[in-house]
Each structure stands twice: as structure tokens, then as C-alpha cells.
């Protein structure tokens, strides 16, 4: 007997066609993993954190990723349903934990989308710095505006339901990266010092770099979100995840090897590491090609992240954790336009900040919290639902999920001890967001109508107070509290608040 409800399973699988074989599944995993991150995240890690040790950091990040993905393999094969990790955690823990993890998964997607938008402007500036030197300054100065325009375009295309070109982009990237690696090897690269044994002193920086570059790997989990389309999921999902996870390590290490061979860590840290490496190996054409590839990758990732965030918010709305308005579907295009617009607004705000390092850590931290919960879910489901059908079992249980959980926690808190300001800012924001999420959950539990009455009462009271104080100030009895707000406007705001408060209070009693 399966550990989860058959009715739920049938509902989730209803009207979906399982059409993706192993090749398509691996491509799907790779398209999730190979993205704009490699074009942007290596810069800070290489120039500021770990230097030549970047290769070891990538290897470590790849191995930790495999450790965590083993839990995804087991759960993805056992529950090939819509919702991915959110569904696993909900099955294991239910309500509160699922809500928290869903929120963090959503936030991670938002940070990734914002990072992709920032990455696009950087690649655009780099592209123009090669073909029309001087114009990049104009692009960088107007980056927030470009980001808002790009997100708006993607928001419109998401609402219209334009499909992504994931697999095609992956094949182009694989070809491009292979050309760079082979070109670099033929170029006669001889990187200094990268094969020396990593010292204990460099370990903190290396771990910070692991946290920072981790988003380059874990994108393959997007595969489980589309598990419902995979043929023979019991076999193809674990194979797809593990093959993608294994293939990505030598690819990234190869690129980093070529990169560190031709770009010194002492060079200008504002440059784009991979683009510079491509320019040195393949000439100006390499720079143009990689800048173009970076732009395409950023736009593709932006589209994917916007879709993922809307899928998560709809899933949570379906489970009544978020307002059901997020489930609204556009009459003409049949797409979840409310969820897309809501997420896009957050992406525009985050993207306008433009702080790449902060966004990079933010995306990583959000995901690491979810990974910790996924590993815990596996442990709980093995214990409580031992007879659940499991086509794939994580090897060395329970050590693997425990190690996966511990590594997630270590990577989560480690940059804090290192004192990296960007990591600290992201973690502080994470704590603040957690408080906000928990508060939202409890407000939700208070009940919509009680909350509406409470807010209505507060507004009604504020309206009366504001009108009264303004009238007293106008007659000269007291001095004005907000002298910069003209009295007629203050009275108008007070009246609006009063009427709104009254309407909110009496909404359910009429």
C-alpha cells in the first residue's frame, strides 16, 4: 500500500501525459542546473573569497549537492506529483512546516529571478563594451530601469503563456562550454597553484565559496517539480537527477580550471570571470559569444523562476495557506496572472537593488532551508510510513539524509561565522523574513474575517483620531503633528480611513 492518499495521487496525475524519457529527464535536470549562475556567481567567489581554491569549492559543492539530491531521488520516485519538495514536506510534516518551506522555496525563486535580471544587465553591459565601447556605462547607470522593463516583458509573456526553450539552450551551452574547455586546453593553460593541497586556514573561505556557488548546482531539483510528466518515474527520476548531478561537476570544474588559468585572482574584481576567460582563450568572439550566452541564460532563468514562484504560490493557495485569488486564471490566456504579477513585483523590487552578492546568498539560503526540511522529511517518512512504495532507496540510510541535513545547516550558518557582510545581510534578512512568514501563518490561522474586523477597527480608530487632531490643529488649540500634510488632505485621509474601517467591520454582519 502506498503511504499517501490514492485519491490525491489520482487527482494530481489526472490530465497529465507522461511523455519524458530518460534523455529528456536528464536534459530537464541540466536545464535547471546550467543557467546564468555560472556567469555571475564565480566572480565574487573567485576574486573575493577563495581565489584558486574555486576548483575545490566547486567539487565540494557538487558532492554536497549529490548528497542532498539522493533524498530528492527517493522522494521524487515515490511521489511523482505536482509541487515537488513542497509536497514531500507536506506529506511528512503537514501544515506549518510545509507552509514555512513553501515560503522559503518561493523566496529562493524570487531571489533567483532578481539575480537573473541583474545578471542580464551585467552581460548586456559586457556585450556592448565589446561591440560599442562606452555604451556599457549608460547601461550600468540605468540598470534598475532595464531590470524593471525586462521583468515586465517576462511578466507579460508569462501571462500570455509563452513556452521556454530549456533543452535547446542547454545543448547550446554544453557546446559552448566544451569549445571553451577544449580551446583552453589547446591554448596551453598552466594554472598556478590550483592543485596544491587546500590549507586549513583557507577552509572558512572555501566553505563560504561553497555556499555562494551552491545555486549553480541545485537548479536540477526543478526536475521534481515536473516529475508528473516523466515516463516510468520510479526509474527515470532518480537516474535523471543523479546523472545531471554527476555531469555538472566535471563541466563546472573544467570551466573553472580554464578560467583560473587565464584570469588572475588579483585582476579587477568588477570583471565577469567567465566572460574574461572566454575572451582570453577565444578572442573578442569568445567575449561576444559568452556575453550573448549569459544574456540568454539570464532571460531563460528569469522566465523559469517566475514560473516556479507562481507554481509554488498557487500550490500554497490551493492548500488555503495563501489567498485563493492567487489561483485566478486569465480568461483569455488561461495562465495564473495574479500569481505571476505578484511575484514579478517582488522581483522588480529585489532586482532594482542590484546587489548581486546579497541576492546570491539570499537564493542559496532560501534553498538550503528547504533542503534541510527535505532530508528531515525523508527520515520521518521512512520511520512513519515504512511500507510506502519506494522505487529508489537512498543508500547508506540513515547516514545520507542525516549528512544532507547537517551539510545544509552548516552551509546555512557558516558564512555568519566567517563575518562575510553580504552573507550576514542575507541571513539577517532571512531571519526577518522567517519572522514575517511565521507571523503571516498565525494571522492566517486567526482567520480571515477576524483579521478583517481587527484591521477595520484599527483604521476606523485612526480615521477618527486623524480627523479630530486635524480639526483641533486647524482651530489652533493644539500644534499640528504632521505640519507637512495640508489640513484638507489630512481630513480627507481620515474620512477615507473611517469609511473603510466601517465597511470592513460591518462586512460580515450585513
Amino acid at each position: 500500500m502506498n503511504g499517501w492518499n490514492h485519491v490525491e495521487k489520482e487527482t494530481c496525475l489526472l490530465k497529465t501525459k507522461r511523455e519524458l524519457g530518460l534523455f529528456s529527464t536528464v536534459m530537464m535536470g541540466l536545464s535547471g542546473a546550467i543557467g546564468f549562475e555560472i556567469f555571475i556567481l564565480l566572480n565574487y567567489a573567485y576574486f573575493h573569497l577563495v581565489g584558486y581554491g574555486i576548483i575545490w569549492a566547486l567539487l565540494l559543492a557538487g558532492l554536497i549537492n549529490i548528497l542532498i539530491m539522493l533524498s530528492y531521488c527517493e522522494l521524487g520516485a515515490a511521489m511523482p506529483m505536482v509541487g515537488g519538495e513542497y509536497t514531500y514536506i507536506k506529506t511528512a510534516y503537514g501544515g506549518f512546516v510545509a507552509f514555512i518551506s513553501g515560503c522559503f522555496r518561493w523566496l529562493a525563486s524570487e531571489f533567483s529571478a532578481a539575480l537573473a535580471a541583474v545578471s542580464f544587465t551585467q552581460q548586456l553591459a559586457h556585450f556592448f563594451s565589446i561591440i560599442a565601447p562606452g555604451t556599457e556605462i549608460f547601461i550600468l547607470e540605468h540598470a534598475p530601469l532595464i531590470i524593471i522593463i525586462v521583468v515586465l516583458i517576462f511578466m507579460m509573456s508569462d501571462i500570455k503563456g509563452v513556452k521556454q526553450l530549456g533543452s535547446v539552450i542547454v545543448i547550446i551551452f554544453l557546446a559552448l562550454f566544451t569549445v571553451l574547455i577544449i580551446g583552453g586546453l589547446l591554448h596551453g593553460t598552466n594554472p598556478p597553484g590550483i592543485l596544491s593541497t587546500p590549507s586549513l586556514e583557507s577552509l572558512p573561505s572555501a566553505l563560504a565559496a561553497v555556499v555562494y556557488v551552491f545555486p549553480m548546482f541545485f537548479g536540477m531539483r526543478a526536475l521534481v517539480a515536473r516529475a508528473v510528466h516523466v515516463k516510468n518515474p520510479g526509474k527515470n527520476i532518480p537516474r535523471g537527477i543523479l546523472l545531471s548531478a554527476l555531469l555538472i561537476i566535471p563541466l563546472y570544474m573544467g570551466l573553472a580550471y580554464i578560467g583560473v588559468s587565464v584570469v588572475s585572482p588579483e585582476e579587477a574584481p568588477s570583471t565577469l570571470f567567465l566572460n574574461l576567460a572566454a575572451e582570453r582563450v577565444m578572442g573578442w568572439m569568445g567575449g561576444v559569444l559568452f556575453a550573448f550566452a549569459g544574456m540568454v541564460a539570464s532571460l531563460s532563468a528569469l522566465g523559469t523562476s517566475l514560473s516556479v514562484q507562481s507554481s509554488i504560490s498557487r500550490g500554497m493557495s490551493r492548500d488555503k495557506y495563501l489567498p485563493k485569488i492567487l489561483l485566478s486564471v486569465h480568461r483569455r490566456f488561461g495562465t495564473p496572472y495574479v500569481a505571476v504579477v505578484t511575484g514579478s513585483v517582488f522581483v522588480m523590487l529585489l532586482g532594482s537593488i542590484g546587489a548581486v552578492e546579497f541576492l546570491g546568498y539570499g537564493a542559496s539560503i532560501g534553498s538550503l532551508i528547504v533542503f534541510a526540511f527535505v532530508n528531515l522529511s525523508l527520515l520521518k517518512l521512512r520511520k512513519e510510513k515504512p511500507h510506502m512504495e519506494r522505487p529508489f532507496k537512498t543508500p547508506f540510510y540513515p547516514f545520507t539524509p542525516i549528512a544532507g541535513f547537517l551539510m545544509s545547516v552548516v552551509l546555512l550558518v557558516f558564512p555568519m561565522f566567517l563575518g562575510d557582510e553580504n552573507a550576514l545581510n542575507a541571513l539577517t534578512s532571512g531571519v526577518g523574513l522567517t519572522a514575517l512568514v511565521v507571523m503571516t501563518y498565525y494571522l492566517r490561522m486567526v482567520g480571515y474575517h477576524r483579521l478583517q474586523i481587527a484591521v477595520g477597527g484599527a483604521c476606523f480608530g485612526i480615521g477618527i483620531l486623524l480627523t479630530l487632531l486635524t480639526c483641533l490643529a486647524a482651530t489652533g488649540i493644539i500644534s499640528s503633528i504632521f505640519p507637512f500634510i495640508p489640513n484638507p488632505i489630512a481630513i480627507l485621509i481620515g474620512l477615507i480611513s473611517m469609511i473603510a474601517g466601517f465597511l470592513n467591520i460591518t462586512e460580515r454582519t450585513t
Partner: protein
Amino acid sequence: MNMRIRRILMVTVGVAQSVTALSTLIFACVLYFDLFNVQASLNIPAQRLYFYVLTLLVFGFLSLTSGLFLVYEWLESR
């Protein structure tokens, strides 16, 4: 109250309150970051700045929630 009038009031007041709330929030940010040299133009003393910003933020968020509640109710009643 007549339902039709109530519905018109809900959407009118809801939208007006939401717009007011958003303007308040934007104004709070402008004030805090002193964009367009607004602190000097409005003669706002530095010691009262945080009081103003905090009050505007609290009022803004509360009004936005209230306004959105009304708009949402109106959408549901359509």
C-alpha cells in the same frame, strides 16, 4: 444598506485607501532617504524624522491591508 451602494462604496473607498496607502509608503521612503532634498524643503527636524517615518509606515501598511480587503471583497461579490 443597499447592496449596490455598498459595493460601489467598497470599490471606491478600497481603491482610494490603497492608493493613499501606497503614496504614504512611497512618501515615507522618500523622506527617509531624503530624495529630492525633501527633509530640508519640508523643514523636518532630524530628531523627529524616525517618528514621522515609523508613523507613516505603520499607517501605510495598515491602510493598504484595509484597502485590499475591501477590493478583494468587491472582487468576490462580483
